[in-house]
């Protein structure tokens, strides 16, 4: 699998945060609508998704002054900051607010990295209404005005991508461009979630740390039992739903999935040969039994002091 970093420029507010599993869903819809896009139909692309995923996408991370910032690993703070216990107690809240770190190659051991406080999201809300065409006004339900939440990204964003050997990077770029034009996530057709695709560069994720003993995940993932010796993570429960035409089903909801959110740190059982971990998630819905979700995540090798 070849890995890349793609940078995108948000053009409007977003209804949903950009997470790996949702973005994977969007790309699948692009492949479904245009079977020529990746050179194969979606069914063919997903045929061996369990063993050999055709694409693994990460969540989006902020780009500040040309540097990509990643989420602070989901580990106890004392494992990330090299300070005395007394100082740690005094500064606990301040340290807790340092939520990101700059992604550099080679990556320093996790407890030597400088963590910074970064706020790249502004939350806002929009009042919407449906006008009753017969009276020309709003009014009683379903014509009562309602509030819709919206998030604005203040910076450009970076997404890490893994593509199987037979998937052309140009095809991926085109698919992502279409997602950006049509809109990502909630309320895309009403103006949300537009972005522009900027540059895409190849990167060797496995070379990011010379001396690693752990892996840092870049999207919500469900690691396989056999690949993990230990894991630090924040649980993330996805109450997923179908997009496009299936969004209109009476029951468009998928079964909830418990993910280890991005920024999990896992201690692998053996040396890693692939730049990703995790599995394909199935049995998501009785309505559409063939549906799958990305439980894979691209990983960065990292060094953790006193890993176990």
């Amino acid at each position, binding site marked *: 699998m070849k890995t890349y970093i793609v940078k995108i420029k948000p053009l409007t*507010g977003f209804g949903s945060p950009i997470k790996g599993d949702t973005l994977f869903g969007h790309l699948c819809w692009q492949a479904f*609508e245009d079977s020529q896009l990746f050179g194969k139909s979606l069914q063919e692309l997903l045929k061996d998704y369990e063993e050999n995923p055709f694409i693994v996408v990460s969540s989006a991370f902020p780009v500040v002054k040309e540097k990509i910032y990643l989420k602070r690993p989901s580990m106890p703070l004392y494992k990330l900051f090299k300070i005395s216990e007394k100082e740690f107690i005094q500064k606990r809240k301040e340290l807790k607010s340092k939520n990101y770190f700059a992604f550099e190659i080679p990556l320093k051991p996790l407890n030597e990295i400088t963590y910074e406080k970064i706020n790249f999201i502004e939350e806002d809300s929009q009042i919407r209404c449906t006008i009753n*065409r017969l009276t020309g006004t709003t009014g009683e339900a*379903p014509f009562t005005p309602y509030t819709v939440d919206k998030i604005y990204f203040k910076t450009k964003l970076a997404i890490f991508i893994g593509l199987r050997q037979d998937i052309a990077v140009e095809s991926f770029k085109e698919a992502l461009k279409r997602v950006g*034009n*049509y809109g990502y996530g909630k309320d895309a057709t009403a103006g949300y979630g*537009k972005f522009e695709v900027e540059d895409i560069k190849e990167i060797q994720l496995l070379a990011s740390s010379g001396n690693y003993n752990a892996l840092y995940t870049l999207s919500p993932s469900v690691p396989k039992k056999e690949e993990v010796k230990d894991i630090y993570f924040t649980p993330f429960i996805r109450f997923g739903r179908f997009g496009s*035409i299936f969004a209109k*089903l009476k029951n468009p909801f998928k079964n909830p999935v418990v993910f280890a959110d991005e920024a999990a740190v896992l201690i692998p059982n053996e040396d890693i040969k692939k730049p990703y971990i995790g599995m394909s998630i199935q049995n998501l819905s009785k309505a559409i039994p063939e549906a799958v979700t990305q439980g894979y995540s691209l990983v960065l090798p990292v060094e953790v002091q006193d890993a176990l």
Partner: protein
Amino acid sequence: MKLKEIKAIKGKIIIKTGLHIGSGNMEMQIGGTDNPVIKHPFTQEPYIPGSSLKGKIRSLLEYYYGIVQEAAKSEDFKNSGGLATPKMLKNADGEIKNHIKNILKVFGAGAGETDENLIIEIGPTRVSFSDCRLNEDFKKQAEQNHWSYIEVKSENRINRITGTAKDPRFIERVPAGTVFDFEVYFKVLDDEDEKLFEDYLLKGLKLLELDSLGGSGSRGYGKIEFQFDDEALKNKFNSLKLWG
């Protein structure tokens, strides 16, 4: 279902008369107006929400194709406010049925439909509007000339008996002459969709030029003009006939 083409309409929206798309006044500010327009939360620049464009265009098309008139005939559909819905589609026939189906195809049908065949027949929402940002060239021009992106208009009502003002109010507007960038994408999923692009989307845009966007349209607010980047589209749009 096969994606044949994604049509892109790119261009500008020129504000012809003051535009008021209200933000709903989520907070009270000392010295602030009661009726602010919607603004980007950290640049504080006004924008046109895609939802306002989509909603207004859809409603104009529903009037234009007689769907509102049809809904008014039945008590059941009166409650749905004259909007084209899958329920209405099932009960309609003839030409009106076609118009309802096409509006659902172009603008979307909403969730909760049980009939899977109908969902597949309608397919995914073809059109995708975008929030419209201020045009970069206009911003430069405005900065050079110290133009404000917002004007505050005062209004009142004259008591006919005393001849004096009542109910004074201050309304924020985006001033005439402001230029926004405009982008719409349209998925062509089968041959019939080509026709939907012209008959529903382009005609919708044309109707909007004749009507108004945002609040207080009958008092002269919100007249807009579309300028398309593509020459062929511009000619097509100009030669489009709505009546007769």
